[in-house]
C-alpha cells in the first residue's frame, strides 16, 4: 500500500499543471494574496514534503480536500464505497454463478468443448467499455450484468481448464469406474481438490472487477468510486487519486491475504 501511495505521489508530483492553482487567476484575490498562494505552492514542491504531509493526514484519518470539489476526500469517498462495493459483490457473484454453471458441464464434455465455450470466448474479446455501451444500446441489463459478463468470461476460461484437469484425474476415473454419480464426483472429489485454486481465482476476480469498475461506472453514470477516480484523473485531483489508489491497493491486498489464509487453512 505504501509503495502504491509513493508511486501515485511521484506520478502526480511530476504531472504538468500540478502546481497550477485556479485561485491565482481569480480576480477577487489581490496581488499579495496571489503571491502568498504561489509561495505556499512553492513550499510544497518537494516530493518528501508532499509525502510527509499526506502521511500525517492519513494517520489522523484525514485524506485531504478535493481540489476539484473543495470538500474533504473522506466525505466524497465514504458514500461511494457502499455503491461500488454493492456493484462489485453483485457483479462478482453473478459472474461466478454464470462461469460455474457453464464450466461444470462443458468441462465434462469429451468433445465440442470449444464450440460450447465460444460465447465466453467472444465475451472475453469485448472491452469493458464496449460491453457497457452494448448493454445500454440493447437496453438490456445494467452495470451488474455488464460486470458479471466480464467476470464470467474470464473466470470461465480458468475454471474450464481447472475442472477439465480434475475430471481427467486418475482418482476420478476410478470413481467413475465404481459407478459414482456425477454429482458425488463433483462435490466430494472435484470441489475439495480445486478449492485452493478457486480461492486464488477469487482474488483475480476482485482485481478484474476493480479494473472494469471505471469504464462501467463512467458509461452507466453510477456514482461510485470508479466514476470518482475517472473524474479525479481527468481533473488531476491529487488527494482523491491518492486516496482511491490506497483504497484499491488495500482491497486487493486484503483479498490476496484472505485467499492465502483460507488456502493455508484448507491445506491444514
Amino acid at each position: 500500500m505504501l509503495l502504491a501511495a509513493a508511486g501515485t505521489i511521484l506520478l502526480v508530483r511530476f504531472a504538468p499543471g500540478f502546481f497550477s492553482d485556479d485561485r491565482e487567476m481569480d480576480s477577487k484575490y489581490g496581488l499579495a494574496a496571489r503571491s502568498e498562494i504561489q509561495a505556499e505552492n512553492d513550499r510544497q514542491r518537494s516530493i518528501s514534503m508532499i509525502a510527509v504531509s499526506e502521511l500525517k493526514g492519513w494517520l489522523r484519518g484525514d485524506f485531504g480536500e478535493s481540489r476539484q470539489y473543495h470538500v474533504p476526500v473522506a466525505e466524497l469517498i465514504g458514500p461511494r464505497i457502499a455503491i461500488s462495493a454493492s456493484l462489485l459483490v453483485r457483479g462478482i457473484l453473478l459472474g461466478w454463478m454464470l462461469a460455474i454453471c457453464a464450466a461444470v458441464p462443458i468441462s465434462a464434455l469429451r468433445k465440442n468443448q470449444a464450440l460450447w465455450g465460444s460465447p465466453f470466448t467472444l465475451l472475453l474479446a469485448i472491452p469493458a467499455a464496449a460491453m457497457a455501451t452494448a448493454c445500454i444500446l440493447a437496453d438490456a441489463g445494467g452495470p451488474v450484468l455488464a460486470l458479471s459478463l466480464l467476470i464470467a468470461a474470464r473466470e470461465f476460461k480458468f475454471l474450464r481448464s481447472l475442472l477439465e484437469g480434475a475430471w481427467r484425474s486418475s482418482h476420478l476415473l476410478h470413481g467413475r469406474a465404481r459407478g459414482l454419480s456425477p454429482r458425488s464426483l463433483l462435490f466430494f472429489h472435484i470441489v475439495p481438490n480445486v478449492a485452493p485454486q478457486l480461492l486464488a481465482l477469487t482474488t483475480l476476480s476482485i482485481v478484474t472487477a476493480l479494473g472494469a469498475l471505471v469504464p462501467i461506472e463512467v458509461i452507466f453514470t453510477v456514482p461510485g468510486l470508479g466514476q470518482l477516480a475517472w473524474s479525479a484523473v481527468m481533473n488531476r485531483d491529487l488527494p482523491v487519486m491518492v486516496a482511491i489508489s490506497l483504497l484499491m491497493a488495500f482491497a486487493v491486498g486484503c483479498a490476496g491475504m484472505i485467499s492465502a489464509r483460507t488456502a493455508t487453512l484448507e491445506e491444514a
Partner: protein
Amino acid sequence: MKTRIAAALLLLLIVGAAFAVWLSPVDYAFQDRDSIMGPSTARHWTGTDDLGRDRTIRLAAALLIGLAGSTIAAGITTMIAGAFGLAAAFSSRAVAGILMLLSDAFLSVPWLFLLMMARSLLPLTASPLQTAVTTFLVLAVLGWPACSRAIYRGASQLRSAEWMIQGRASGLKPMQLIRTHLLPHLHPLFLPQFLICVPAFLMAEANLGALGLGVGEPMPSWGGMLMELGNSALLARSNWVYLPIALLVLVLLLLETFAPESETNA
C-alpha cells in the same frame, strides 16, 4: 491449424487495411462537409462519421495503428519483464525479494486504473502522434509486472536445471553460461508473454480511448471509434457505426488464438 487460419485472416485484414489507407485519395482526417453522418455510398463505402470523415479509411488506419502500437508495446513490455524476471531469478534472494515486491506493488493497483492515472498525468498539450506514442508507451511501461512474475518462475526453474548445474560445475563463466545455454531456453518463456500482451494492450487502448484518455483526435483509434457508439444521432442513421466494434472483437479473437490457453495474466 487453428492458428494458421487465424494468422492468414489477420494478415488479410492487415494487407486490406494497408491498401485501403494507401489507395485512398484522402487521408483519415479529411472532412467531407457535404456528407456529415452520411450513409454507405460509392465514395464512402461504410459511410462517414459526425465530422464527415470516411469510416473505412479511419477504421483501416485504426487497425494498423492499434496493431502496430500494441505489438511494439508488447515487445517493450516483454523486454522489461524479461530483464526484471531474469535479474530476480539469477540474483540473491534479497534482491529477488525486492524486485518481486516492486512487481507486487504494481499488481496491487488494478491495471486499467493505473494506466488511466499514468496516462492522464502526461503533458496536456500534445499532438495526436504524441498521444498515440504516449498511450502505447504507458501500456508498455506498466504492463510488465504480471509477465515478469511468469518469467521469474520459468527462469528460476532454468537456474536449477541439471544442465545449468553441470555448466557451472564445468567452470563456465556466467556470461558464457547465459549466452550459450540460457538464451536459447528463454524463447519459450518470452514468446507466450508477448503473445498475451498484444491483445491485452489492444483492449486496454480501446478502454482508455473510450474514457477519453487514449489516442488524440483526429488520429483514429479503436477507443475513439468506440466513442461513436455514444452518439445516438449517428446510431439512428447508420448501422455501419457498429463495424469498428465488430472488427475489434474479430481482431481480438484472432489474436487470442495465438495466446497460450493457461497463461492469460496480462
